């Protein structure tokens, strides 16, 4: 067999924190042949991105390669000079970042950024490269391929940007592309389009790729072989089908098992019972544009209503209407059968206390300068008027409830907690007001699957103990399946379907629900192929069929 395109041997990488160098990657090996796709999977902190960047000879600030070699086509990128590396980067090795929206320069048009690589590397002229760019946009099924490149990044949607970034990576026809979680930030329906486009184009040009993701079902569609990482160590590596059907290591098996959590069904609501929260024909607007149209649904005591939809479908706006941050233009909100003032400033303390929120980004939702005790203590004091010892006792009880040892965590700052622990603090803060109803806004989206599962289980436990009602905003249907009792599907600010979970996951569906459901990747390597066949390729992209 010929020499592999990329050969990583005994790679050790360190990161600096508090003036000392700590290992991030502990002696990982990787071989990649021409035209082959390897999937790197693992939780956050496993070192996937670090390896991805290192295979370009690149490390972020405060990170260094301490040992090992990264040989790309005979050149060791660890020892190569900066100029030698620059000659390869962009030209023979390209990178597709997680967030295309953040990785395109907001100051330049897409096409100018697309042609920059070929022109700077003297691969082709600006005119040739522009023409090629339009062709690539067409192949990636971008709408208006002739015109879209001449827009600024903020004028193009996330899914389209991600495809434009793949096109940009292709501009010099590289031998290797690093895909760093390219679809993580996208909605399921958009994700499929991007996955299919990426796979097509990688196959067409016989490009080798490293595909980094934490989503097993996604990697199953994309990769020829899979390498599982845990805290900088390789757990195991094998070809995709073997890995899915017969994982050897316990850790891999535990990753596979996450998707199976599902709380038992609850008895259905007694007809005629007063719902805890009732959204009544709400229409709301930002400025003069209506973004919610006639939204109505009920949330009953002790039950979880999942509100599902793509970004921009009005899920979070509905939450803002319920909390009174955005007073509806038409319609109103009832709580225990009583109409609430539309604006939160006119609700009394009791009304405010009853509805609490938990946010998606626990990082930004916690004040970094306040200790955990202060963060949770504040609503305890504000709503329950507890002070001194009583307050401390209440905070301790809350910490115990979210399964964190009070004495250990009371004086910590948010920066000393992991992502999952921060989210638990967010839950404790919401519980501090002793509410009846909690809005969970994408609370598990930013978390790894194992951690997310822990949070879901905690929320389910709290619901059983305290009889809480949840409104669970999410775009992840696996989460819906795991935790919800009822489902509300939203699209373009309207409710397109609602009902009991069992009904929702069984046909017949509203066509949009069907699209959402069928777009969730499954752990079957043939899933994407089958789906594409079923839908017909034309349905996937919103542009013309591949002309080549």
């Amino acid at each position, binding site marked *: 067999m010929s020499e592999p395109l990329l050969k990583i041997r005994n790679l050790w990488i360190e990161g600096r924190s508090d003036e000392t160098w700590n290992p991030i990657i502990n002696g990982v090996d990787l071989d990649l042949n021409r035209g082959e796709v390897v999937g790197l999977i693992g939780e956050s902190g496993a070192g996937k991105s670090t390896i991805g*960047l290192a295979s*370009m000879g690149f490390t*972020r*600030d405060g990170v260094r390669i301490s040992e090992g070699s990264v040989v790309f086509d005979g050149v060791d990128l660890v020892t190569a000079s900066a100029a030698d590396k620059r000659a390869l980067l962009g030209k023979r090795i*390209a990178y597709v970042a997680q967030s295309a929206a953040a990785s395109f*320069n907001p100051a330049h048009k897409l096409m100018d950024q697309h042609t920059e690589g070929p022109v700077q590397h003297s691969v082709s002229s600006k005119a040739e490269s522009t023409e090629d760019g339009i062709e690539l946009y067409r192949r990636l099924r971008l709408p208006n391929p002739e015109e879209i490149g001449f827009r600024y990044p903020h*004028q193009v949607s996330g899914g389209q940007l991600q495809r434009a970034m793949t096109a940009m990576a292709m501009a010099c026809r590289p031998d290797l592309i690093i895909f760093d979680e390219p679809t993580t930030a996208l909605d399921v329906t958009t994700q499929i389009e991007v996955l299919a486009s990426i796979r097509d184009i990688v196959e067409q040009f016989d490009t080798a790729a490293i595909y980094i993701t934490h989503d097993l079902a996604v990697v199953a569609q994309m990769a020829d072989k899979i390498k599982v990482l845990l805290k900088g160590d390789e757990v195991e590596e094998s070809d995709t089908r073997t890995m899915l059907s017969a994982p050897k290591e316990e850790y891999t098996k535990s990753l596979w098992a996450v998707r199976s959590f599902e709380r038992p069904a609850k008895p259905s609501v007694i007809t005629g019972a007063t719902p805890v929260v009732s959204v009544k024909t709400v229409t709301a607007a930002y400025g003069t544009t209506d973004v919610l149209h006639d939204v109505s649904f009920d949330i009953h005591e002790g039950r979880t209503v999942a509100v599902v939809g793509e970004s921009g479908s009005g899920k979070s706006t509905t939450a803002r209407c319920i909390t009174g941050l955005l007073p509806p233009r038409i319609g109103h909100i009832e709580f225990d059968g009583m109409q609430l003032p539309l604006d939160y400033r006119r609700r009394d303390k009791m009304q405010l206390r009853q509805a609490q929120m938990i946010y998606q980004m626990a990082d930004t939702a916690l004040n970094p300068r306040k200790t955990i005790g202060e963060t949770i203590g504040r609503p305890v004091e504000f709503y329950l008027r507890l002070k001194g010892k009583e307050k401390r006792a209440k905070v301790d009880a809350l910490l115990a409830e979210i399964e964190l040892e009070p004495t250990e965590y009371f004086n910590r700052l948010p920066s000393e907690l992991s992502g999952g622990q921060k989210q638990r603090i967010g839950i404790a803060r919401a519980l501090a007001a002793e509410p009846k109803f909690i809005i969970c806004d994408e609370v598990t989206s930013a978390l790894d699957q194992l951690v997310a599962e822990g949070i879901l289980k905690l929320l389910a436990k709290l619901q059983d103990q305290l009889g809480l009602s949840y409104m669970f905003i999410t775009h992840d249907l696996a989460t819906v399946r795991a935790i919800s009792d009822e489902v509300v599907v939203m699209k373009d600010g309207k409710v397109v379907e609602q009902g009991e979970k069992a009904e929702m996951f069984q046909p017949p569906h509203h066509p949009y629900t069907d699209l959402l459901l069928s777009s969730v990747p499954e752990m079957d390597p043939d899933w994407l192929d089958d789906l594409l066949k079923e839908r017909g390729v034309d349905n996937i992209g919103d542009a013309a069929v591949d002309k080549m």
Partner: protein
Amino acid sequence: MQRLLLGLVTLFVVSIIIFVAVNALPGDFAEAILGQGATPEAVNAIREQLGLNQNAVTRYFSWLAGAIRGDLGVPLSQALFAGNFGTTAVGTDVTTVVDQIIPRLKNTLFLAGVSAAISVPLAVTLGVLTALYRNTAFDKSMNVTTLSAISSPEFFIAYILILFLAVLNPVFPSLSNIFPGMEFSERLTRTMLPALTLTLAVTAQMMRMTRAAIINLLASPYIEMARLKGLSPMRVIVKHALPNALAPIITVIALNLAFLVTGVVVVEVVFVYPGIGQLFVDSVKIRDIPVVQACCLIFAAVYILLNLTADILSIISNPRLRHPK
């Protein structure tokens, strides 16, 4: 449009503050000109003649009304001569405040223009270079140099420059007494020393802001992307970081340009440069209130105008605001 209105409102408020502040100065023109031995009768006579005994609100509004028409009044010093000698014929020669200020303002703007033409490109270039070679000896020495320049009082820098560039090596004249009708090159040579002094005073802030604004962006994903495309470090900074760092840089440049017009008092005095700053100092000395007020008003207008321009330029530099969805 809204910004323009806001600017006008600010100017109005400032005009009130100026008026109140100037009138709160101890002593008045009459006392200043007649000296300590003046009899109360004489002081009152002059006050009456100049309308200084009217109440403040009336005086404010008559001044404001004049200012809006572009008539900032007659300098008290001029009015006094006309009154004292009873030679009403001189009245035709009496210069107005506007006549007195305009040539001075032109000189100051010329000095500011020359300083800006040197300092802005210098500061931005140095900012880019220090960002590119950050934490190297070059970066550190530039920072130390510009910081020492900004930390030293201007008159000190001015005298140092005079010592080295006028006395020890007579390259430029130490007195910048320019006058109308002078050749441009001569004017420029004579303006050089005050311009260099001002350059040293303003460069540091602009340079450091450019450096900080660029470095601030270096951790952003699109800069990482640019580097991963194999672009040269210079191109990454100039083409990818700088356009996104423009807004804060423009703001600081505007503030410093405003300083070039309004903060020149000391420098003009040191170099005997016939600009508005010197006129301002002289007028304060003799309590020539109309001139002092007019100078203040012009300073305020320059500040507001430059900040307005900076706001507009920041908007233009941002494609998100230039091309809405």
